[in-house]
């Protein structure tokens, strides 16, 4: 316990200190920066909600929504079989399990923005690389969460199905699927929320959505408009989250 604590403090100091291997964290610098007059904070004080009514922001929001809807649905659909294979119970054999598990770990270790960078390099800018990036991101999230659920299901129906001579696919269909369906639906909706939030930043690497608009106003130094768009985005995210929370409660 004490050893662990010392290690923890040591790690924090090593990572935070201002030396060759530290990030040079300093509270005074933060205080100085925040108290100095600066453009983003001045913009926040005179936030311009009028930016939301322009066609630029409207198209951005629409694109963000379209991207999130498509990629969540496509990603969640493909994640269901992968989730089955990603659990010891559902995989037809050890080899499939090992391959799917490795693939899923790699997919999940690559952050959404990095996917976007890769796809922008592959097919150039626009909504398509954004959709593809969110698709892979959703695939990783939903597969992982759902396969964790499969590990915790009741084994009674599985044994019953096997005892009455069900084949492996039949067992999955009638013993496993009914048990995980509510959780799976709930994870898919959670993933939609994540995608909506993520699609706000994909625009910074050219992958479409409302992020493109935020990046445009930032490039122009119009921070009042940046914060206007961010505020609008905030409202959209919170509203969607509320609706989704109600629906998810009904499902579980």
């Amino acid at each position, binding site marked *: 316990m004490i050893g662990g604590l010392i290690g923890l403090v040591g*790690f*924090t100091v090593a*990572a*935070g200190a201002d030396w060759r*291997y*530290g*990030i*040079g*964290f*300093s509270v005074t*610098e*933060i205080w100085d*920066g*925040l108290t*100095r007059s600066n453009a*983003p*904070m001045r913009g926040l004080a005179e936030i311009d909600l009028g930016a939301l009514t322009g066609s630029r922001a409207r198209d951005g929001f*629409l*694109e963000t*929504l*379209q*991207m999130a*809807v*498509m990629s969540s*649905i496509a990603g969640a659909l493909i994640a269901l079989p992968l989730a089955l294979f990603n659990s010891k119970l559902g995989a037809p054999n050890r080899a499939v399990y090992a391959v799917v598990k490795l693939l899923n*770990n*790699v997919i999940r*270790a*690559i*952050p*959404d*923005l*990095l996917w976007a*960078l*890769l*796809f922008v*390099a*592959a*097919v150039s800018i*626009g*909504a*398509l690389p954004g*959709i*593809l990036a969110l698709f892979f991101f959703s695939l990783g999230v939903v597969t992982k969460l759902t396969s964790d659920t499969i590990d915790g299901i009741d084994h009674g129906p599985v044994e019953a199905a096997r005892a009455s001579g069900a084949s492996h696919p039949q067992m999955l269909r009638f013993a496993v699927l009914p048990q995980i369906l509510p959780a799976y639906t709930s994870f898919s909706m959670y993933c939609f929320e994540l995608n909506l*939030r*993520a699609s*706000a*930043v994909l625009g*910074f*690497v050219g992958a*479409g959505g409302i992020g493109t608009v*935020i*990046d445009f106003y*930032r490039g122009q130094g119009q*921070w009042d408009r940046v914060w206007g768009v*961010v505020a609008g*985005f*905030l409202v959209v*995210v*919170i509203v969607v989250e509320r609706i989704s929370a109600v629906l998810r409660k009904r499902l579980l």
Partner: protein
Amino acid sequence: MSGTETQRVADERFRDAVRPEKPFNWFRLTVTVAVVAGFLGASLSVDARWERLPEVPGELWNIFGLMFGDLDLADLPDALDSMWESVGIAWIGTMIAAALSFPLAFLAARNVSGRVSVVVTRQLLNIPRAIPEIIFAVALIPIFGLGPLAGTVAIGLSSTGTIGKLSAEIIEGCDHGPMEAADAAGGSKPQLVRWAVMPQVMPEIIAFWLYRFEVNIRASAVLGVVGAGGIGTMLQQSIEFRQWASAGMALIVVVLVTILIDMASGAIRRRIIRGPRPAAQT
């Protein structure tokens, strides 16, 4: 009534019996229609230039070939260095968030604080939760300049919302017995929190801090894309300038380090939640 008579009646009943009709599930139909319609509507209306889609697998294969075809070990020290910076940003950012969110969590828990405090604090925690780290980072770069400090503060601020909300929920889920006991023994509110609530909730809250650290590593790995320090800068620049080999090396380092830290942190979290093994106490 004879035995055969009973048998006949039973057979008749069995013959006439029909399977009860399955109740029609309106909810499922609505969801299916909404999902299909949403997907079709979005895919047809979005301006994605779908004709590029068939090229994607080929292009991606091409890029992966260039990335991992001729890896150069000379890039490794650079990649490890920047990844360490990302880990540092994630760790210090998580520490900031933990320190900021800890008091807020108690203010947002219904069983500890009053109504007004709960409502106000919850709204306060909702705002950073909805804003992605990158947006914080781009707003902080003009203030702190390009570099890890902007990224650290961005991670810290945006994690405060999530950690605060989850911690408040953990506090609300704690057992009421000790609180009543402390109250009955004449404990003041701070004493109540210190001796009845904190011992119950600390393991779970610390485990969540660690989990958030894992999430933040992924976030800090990309913060460099906008110039807020860490390995993202290396990734973004090597991809932009088509130096595929060093992009590949950076990608490998990100994936491996992320998976390794996930595993280590996961083991520590399970140990914290489970508590010390009985054998270790003897």
